[in-house]
């Protein structure tokens, strides 16, 4: 049954590709009109760079050979063989490359409205050509974490945690947007310019996420498994939308649309690692917690005075960590988990391994991204000038307006 495996992987890869549009729309919708084009440009080019970088370097590092730390063969995909029996390596590459793209583009939203385009270009090449593949290798490419039975099915940590932590490092180094905190340190809202864009983006992401999670089976030999994943990928975000909305309602007096939408994404990230090895009850719980974590995480960043425009760290980082740890709690060997989870009497072993994996992956990410951003800062500068920030990156960096003909305020 090779044909159906390839067909499945390709279709899922197409779906994951489409998530790029989802990220672009969410990010564009949550910035101000004057920066919408810039964030879309970053989104387009980071996928472009992900495809190129993952073709030239990334695949080789991630899957080229199975040393514990990094792969070292298969540059430019030369001479690579498919790790999946009966599935062409091109199909496998594509499925992996769109993951690298997702990981890279998560950062765009966090650093939006102030990061230089040229700096972003360099960053995005580096993350998908080098950083992501290293972590990917450890977990999925036969590296040391794979050997330890660390389980991150579709990438709560590898893709989302990595993207989320990079987003945090970037947002922190870049400092908040002008006006985002008052002089005495109080957070001020800078509302996004288009809720319909955010909403369509979230739906596209959810749609694509079915490919992300259910395609990570890398084949269709076990329909039972794929169906369970699809079910969990529905329940967790559905519940998370509800829990994020409810928390926002209770805390802030009104149900907040953009938090409910962030909640959906948090639920999706949370279920990404455990989707294959937990039952639907656990998926509901993971969704519930993820939605709550997103809202509190956003609050927490405000208190830390980190300006993460779209909530990339709470969504991808916090829920990514949570989801990965959840494997150690809710994972069941009966469903295919490598180690029995806490809830099923496996003790703290699985949880320990999961925690170790998270720390290793995200520790490495944090340190290497810190170095990368600092280096870029030294070369190009990370941040646009104050004047560019005020006038908007669309005009200053691209010489255009995203909404020509509309009467718009460029200040609040």
């Amino acid at each position: 049954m090779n044909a159906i495996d390839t067909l499945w992987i390709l279709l899922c890869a197409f779906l994951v590709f489409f998530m790029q549009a989802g990220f672009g729309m969410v990010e564009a919708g949550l910035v101000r009109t004057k920066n919408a084009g810039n964030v879309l440009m970053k989104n387009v080019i980071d996928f472009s760079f992900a495809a190129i970088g993952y073709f030239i370097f990334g695949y080789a590092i991630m899957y080229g050979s199975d040393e514990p730390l990094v792969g070292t063969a298969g540059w430019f995909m030369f001479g690579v063989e498919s790790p999946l029996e009966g599935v062409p390596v091109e199909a496998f590459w594509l499925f992996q490359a769109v993951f690298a793209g997702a990981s890279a583009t998560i950062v765009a939203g966090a650093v939006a409205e102030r990061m230089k385009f040229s700096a972003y270009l360099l960053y995005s090449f580096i993350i998908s050509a080098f950083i992501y593949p290293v972590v990917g290798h450890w977990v999925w490419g036969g590296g040391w974490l794979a050997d330890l039975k660390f389980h991150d099915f579709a990438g709560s940590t590898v893709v989302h945690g990595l993207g989320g932590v990079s987003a945090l490092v970037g947002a922190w180094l870049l400092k908040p947007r002008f006006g985002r905190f008052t002089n005495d340190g109080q957070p001020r809202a800078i509302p996004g310019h288009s809720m319909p864009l955010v909403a369509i983006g979230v739906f596209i992401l959810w749609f694509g996420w079915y490919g992300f999670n259910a395609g990570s089976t890398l084949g269709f030999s076990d329909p039972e498994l794929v169906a369970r994943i699809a079910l969990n990928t529905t329940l967790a975000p559905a519940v998370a939308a509800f829990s994020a909305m409810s928390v926002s309602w209770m805390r802030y007096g009104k149900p907040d649309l953009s938090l409910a939408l962030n909640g959906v994404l948090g639920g999706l990230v949370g279920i990404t690692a455990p989707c294959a090895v937990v039952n639907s009850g656990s998926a509901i719980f993971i969704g519930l917690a993820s939605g709550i974590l997103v809202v509190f995480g956003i609050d927490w960043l405000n208190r830390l005075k980190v300006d993460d425009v779209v909530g990339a760290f709470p969504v991808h980082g916090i829920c990514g960590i949570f989801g990965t740890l959840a494997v150690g709690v809710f994972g069941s060997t009966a469903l295919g988990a490598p180690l029995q989870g806490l809830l099923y009497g496996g003790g703290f072993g699985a949880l320990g391994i999961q925690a170790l994996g998270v720390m290793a992956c995200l520790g490495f990410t944090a340190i290497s991204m810190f170095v990368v951003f600092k280096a870029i800062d030294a070369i190009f500068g990370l941040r646009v000038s104050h004047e560019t920030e005020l006038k908007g990156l669309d005009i200053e960096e691209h010489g255009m307006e995203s909404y020509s003909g509309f009467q718009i305020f460029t200040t609040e």
Partner: protein
Amino acid sequence: MKMIIAYIRQEQLPAVKESLSGAEMFHFTVMPVLGTAPRAEQRTFRGVEQKVTLFKRMRLELVVKDSDVENAIEAISRGAMNSGGGGRIFINDVIDAVKIWTGERGDRAI
């Protein structure tokens, strides 16, 4: 001639239009603006408080003959008032007027 500038609530525009046409004043110009209010409004966006101090208002501009000023004020006031507030009217002097199509000047151009 006087130029009457009124700041009203956007939702009262239909009522003002009606009362003006009741007073036989058919020509005016409106534009959406932002205006202050006695109290700021607290909103939250993504959990962050946002103090809104400028609110959507409609600015109405209406040039009338001197003799119509009180009628106009009266008509606008009638239409503009609702349970939440009323708005403000200012009266400026107009020195001359031109109707481009005919080249007419002064009162005949209004």
